[in-house]
């Protein structure tokens, strides 16, 4: 049952991801990407990371993708205005990414199985455990991340201003 679910979710994720790349209309790309994210969130659930799955949906599908949509609509890009690349370039792009895939997959061949140091637990994906780790081991990066977000916000506002004189 789980295996089939994995196959199904993987198929959805890969297909929607390809659609993101291949669809002509940017709006469609965004929508496919949202679907891809849902598929990935399904994987998270499958992996016992329920809280992360929820956060993933909220942040990516809810915030980031809305931002994308917003920008596309603001710039009025929902038409297929993109000039096509030459066939040669498309081919070379496919070859490059394909060879990267081959390399990545090929590198798995020599890999050894890692033995988990902790005993298996169902509950590591629960919010309590995550909170413990986040606010104990990663307190400083957590605070630094807030500064990063603040900086990003200020930067976005500055760049988004109509005229920078």
């Amino acid at each position, binding site marked *: *049952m*789980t295996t089939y679910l994995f196959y199904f979710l*993987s198929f959805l*994720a*890969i297909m929607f*991801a390809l659609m*993101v790349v*291949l669809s002509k209309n*940017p709006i469609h*790309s965004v929508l496919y990407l949202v679907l891809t*994210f849902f598929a*990935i969130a399904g*994987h*998270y659930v499958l*992996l*016992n*990371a329920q809280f*992360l799955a929820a*956060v*993933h949906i909220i*942040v*990516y599908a809810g915030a*980031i993708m809305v*931002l*994308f949509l917003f*920008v*596309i609509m603001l*710039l009025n890009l929902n038409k297929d205005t*993109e000039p096509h*690349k030459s066939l040669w370039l498309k081919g070379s*792009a*496919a070859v490059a*990414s394909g060879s*990267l895939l081959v390399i*990545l*997959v090929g590198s*798995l061949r020599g890999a050894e199985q*890692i033995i*988990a*140091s*902790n005993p*298996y*637990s*169902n509950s*590591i*994906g629960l919010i309590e455990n*995550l909170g413990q*780790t986040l606010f104990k*081991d*990663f307190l400083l990066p957590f605070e630094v*991340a807030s500064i*990063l*977000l603040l900086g*990003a*916000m200020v930067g*976005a*506002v500055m*760049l*988004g201003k109509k005229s*920078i004189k």
Partner: protein
Amino acid sequence: MSAIQTIPINWYLLLSAVLFSIGILGVLFRRNAIIIFMSIELMLNAVNLLLVAFSTYLSDSKGQVFVFFIMAVAAAEVAVGLAILMSVYRNSKSTDINILSKLKG
């Protein structure tokens, strides 16, 4: 019921590799900066997925915490990146990356 009992981690590695390569393909394939951005998000998610997978297989919650940070970085990146895109569009009325060729030697 958990994926770990039936699904080997190699499968997740493969899935991540495929998603990541699709992201790369998108970056190379498209000229629209927004699509390229989305491809980058796709790559980030491929990595996220792998982190979560390892976190579960190794029973270590640090991997999942890392995903949070990646999300934070991605959010910041998208905010700034889209703002840059806005100003580029404002100046050139296009999101085609090929017009950004001021670096030509």
